């Protein structure tokens, strides 16, 4: 990984996505076998990128303020969608 790559990734936990992947496989498999629990797996795989952005926004605040603000902007976009969807 180059230096710029490291700077771009400051604060983003490397384990989060691999862990999110395997937990997602397990929860979705449970959801396929027990359809009443299907929503849990779907919510989980949607939660992983949101958790990652939240982590970066909080953990990166001191390490890399620009990255942290960028992650907050992304989360702000999702909050906006969440508010607008209430009116659908």
């Amino acid at each position, binding site marked *: 990984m180059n230096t710029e790559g490291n700077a771009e990734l400051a604060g983003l936990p490397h384990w989060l996505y691999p862990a999110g992947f395997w937990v997602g496989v397990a929860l*979705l498999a449970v959801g396929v076998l027990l359809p009443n629990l299907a929503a849990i*797996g779907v919510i989980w*795989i949607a939660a992983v*990128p949101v958790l990652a952005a939240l982590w970066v926004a909080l953990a990166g605040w001191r390490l890399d303020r620009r*990255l942290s603000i960028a992650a907050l902007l992304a989360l702000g976009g999702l909050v906006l*969608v969440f508010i607008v969807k209430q009116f659908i």
Partner: protein
Amino acid sequence: MMLAVIAVGLLAGVLGAILGLGGGVVVVPALEFVLPHFGREITIQQAVAVSQIGVLAVGLSGAASYLQQGLVRARTGYLLSPYTIVGGAVGSFLGLILPARAVATVFALLLLYSAYNLLRGLKRVEVEREPSRLVPPAMTFAGIMSGLLGIGGGTVQVPVLNLLAGVPIRQAIATSTFIMGLTAVGNALVYQAGGLLDVKMAAGIGLGVLVGARMGARLQSRIPAAQLKLFFSLLLIFTSLNLLWKYWGHA
């Protein structure tokens, strides 16, 4: 029927890993044409809604791999994702209100464009460049397409990141995959609010895509990509014509 849904997800995951084109481009038409054989009719908007969860799975699987390789430009991705998220919400809302025939027509055009790109190869730039002022509107457009058609980013977002934002091609692909997760979350929220998201079917597609993406990464070196590209391009053209026939043939 659930086994067929998982198989569609598997196919999308495998093709996505090998060709970089497998999310909604596979899931939406496959659900449209396969499910009626199991006695389940599905509108193209319902298929697009389910495909958003497939895109989430592609994003999760791809980001896990690309982050390990150090290819993701997280800051660039987070800075651009508000545009794709807002664009995605607009596209998803259009998906809720536009007639199925209009969505199917745009989707058929996308399939033809994807086939053309597969056969010709995308124009790509390997070196870092200054970003263009057109990046924000272009990313918003990429978001609209992802929301309206249930596609990830390979078709629209990667060329924008590479040719307009000046991100080298491998990092553009990785960053696009990273962004598509957040965009798909917003899109799925809108389709769920519109009552079009079948969560049980979405779980089957999500599982198939996650497993398929892993299988595809292992199969990548064993499958001749050139022949697969040609076969898949012809399949895309055939599917596009079928889709147009389904929605316009009886007009």
